[in-house]
């Protein structure tokens, strides 16, 4: 049985389609990421799966229970961390956990034990009695992770768990999630717009844009699915006439764009293109001023499938200026 099974799930708000006929499965024990820019419909999807929003169309089963018809059964077997930090600031970390354990109906004897275990797991034992308002953002997020686990759920939903955290805290949260997942045999479904987060944490990633599923696979396979394997960014001491065409004609080059005398080259074979590039510069009697080689990132994957860059959607970088050909 799949942990989550979504079939043509749709949500419309006054004519606006936030989630458009999504179909996918999340297998037991995997970390499944929903990657997409803000407004892609990730949070709406997670809210439907956690019974907070009724779907307009389609079905979704969580741990075998229908999210529309068996809401209480669904709620009992899921842990949810919403996007906003919602722990009570005036209450201590322990009190927050205790109240949620009661809300989930955890028996008194188990409550004390699980709270101690979870505080230990998220490394907040020393802060158990401190009001949450005295904790840092990263510590609060870790507390929320513990809060979502007080009733020992089978499936854990996290809506952008590291948004607003500094890089160190983000890494700490990732490590914590991986550790807890192993310890508690959890299935995790998380949403994120951070490519590195999805890349590092997720077994499989569903790329969502404008409410639609545009790609779904493991990070490695997604990256392998796009034409170029590497990207080179290079500048030269001078730019001879017809230089763009020369670069395009180099072996393994999939495409070249120039912006402000910086050339971005998509290549099927980064190392070989680099050698050829240096050789071509020597022949043209110019010097390579700067050179960087990058492997394909999920941002490139996102760009390939949507025609836009995920890392800065405000740039609205379109296909015309992009190296990535559309699917």
């Amino acid at each position, binding site marked *: 049985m799949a942990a989550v099974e979504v079939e043509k799930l749709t949500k419309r708000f006054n004519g606006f389609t936030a989630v458009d006929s999504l179909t996918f499965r999340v297998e037991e024990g995997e970390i499944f990421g929903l990657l997409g820019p803000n407004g892609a419909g990730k949070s709406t999807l997670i809210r439907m799966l956690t019974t907070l929003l009724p779907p307009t169309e389609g079905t979704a089963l969580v741990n075998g229970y229908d999210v529309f018809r068996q809401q209480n059964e669904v*709620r009992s077997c899921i842990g949810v961390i*919403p996007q906003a930090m*919602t722990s009570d600031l005036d209450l201590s970390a322990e*009190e927050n956990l205790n109240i949620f354990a009661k809300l989930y109906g955890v028996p008194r004897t188990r409550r004390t034990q699980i709270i101690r275990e979870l505080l230990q797991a998220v490394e907040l034992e020393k802060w158990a009695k401190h*009001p949450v308002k005295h904790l840092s953002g990263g510590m609060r997020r870790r507390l929320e992770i513990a809060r979502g686990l007080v009733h020992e759920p089978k499936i854990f939903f996290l809506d952008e768990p590291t948004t607003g955290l500094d890089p160190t805290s983000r890494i700490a949260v990732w490590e914590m999630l991986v550790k807890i997942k192993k310890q508690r045999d959890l299935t995790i479904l998380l949403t994120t717009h951070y490519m590195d987060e999805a890349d590092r944490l997720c077994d499989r990633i569903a790329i969502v844009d404008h409410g639609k599923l545009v790609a779904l696979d493991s990070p490695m396979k997604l990256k392998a699915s796009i034409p170029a394997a590497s990207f080179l960014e290079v500048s030269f001491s001078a730019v001879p006439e017809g230089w763009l065409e020369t670069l395009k004609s180099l072996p393994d080059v999939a495409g070249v764009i120039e912006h402000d005398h910086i050339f971005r080259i998509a290549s099927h074979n980064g190392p070989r293109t680099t050698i050829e590039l240096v050789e071509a510069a020597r022949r043209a009697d110019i010097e390579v001023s700067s050179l960087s080689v990058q492997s394909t990132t999920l941002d490139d994957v996102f760009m390939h499938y949507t025609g836009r860059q995920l890392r800065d959607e405000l740039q609205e970088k379109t296909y015309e200026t992009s190296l990535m050909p559309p699917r």
Partner: protein
Amino acid sequence: MNRIMAIIQRDLLKFFRSPALMMASLIFPLVQLVVLGYAFGGKIKNLTVGVVNQDHGLETVRLREMFGAIAANARTFTTVGYNDPQKALEDLREGRINAVLEIPPDFSRNVLEQHAPQIALIEDNTDNFVTSALEGVFTGLVGAFNQPRVEPRVPGGVSLQIVELYPYVPYIQYLLAGSVVLAIFVSAMIGGGIIFIDDKARGLHEGYLVTPITKFELIMGFTLSGASKAILAGLVLSTLGALLAGIPNPLSLARLARLIVVIVVSSMALISMMFLMMVRITDPLVPRAIFGVLNTLLFFPSGAVYPINAFPPWMKSITIIDPFTYAVHAFKSLFLKNTGFVAISGDLIFLTVFTIIMMTFATLLFRRTL
């Protein structure tokens, strides 16, 4: 039950850790009780009446002796003599004096001849309270002046004997019932309105909604936690207020027990009303914006500051459905008359039925989803 208790526990922990919030729900009604209680409760004193005496006969001397007695005892007014009536009227218009008493030239002769003697009181009637006080004193004064010099052995006319059932009730005691209800209301407004919507806006309710808690448990949790805070506010203000206002025997156990019942029933009524109003609201500004309107609309028509019998019909219709009216009546009965449950049973029944209706509608309108 555990889940309901979890919501109550969380709310009360927050409440006791926010002293400012606790004080806010008590300070407003307490200040109102003391300021309004003393502002409206006192007798009007130290007015100035200009006397234009154009007579100078024997009877005016008697009148002036009476004025002197009032100035020395009740101190409602003192007199200032004027020779020129125009000057007296000018001073009245300019606010230097509060009234002018004109004694015409033939006053003493008319008194002795019993020929319809008259004196005139010219008032600044822009202040109804002052004019009422002066009219009351002068009517009594003229009544005393008209008394026969030799009293008949057996009075021939009808006389009215007034017997007061309870000790004198200063205005601050009259106002106390309204202040206790106001404390409960402010607490309901903060706990059931402002904090409820703020928590909703901050996403705290989202945390509740993903747990297996039922709709009924959620509503009961919110209502009971709000009511607990309102009950605390009501208890503190009834005790403090009773001591401040000088209610006789304020700590009588029998009355305290009855007060607790009224406080609990009133708190449930007001918090359930607040919960119904806020059940579909998401904007944190709304409860803050409607606070003043609700306070005016519910508190003033309730009979807390002025008797309901004086209200125009449209306002009386508000008092019929206003829960404040019944709560204020019940508290007044207990504070001022120390009655038993029979005298307040109608109020308790209304407030209980009101709570049930509010809770039913709130439950129907409450959304278990976002």
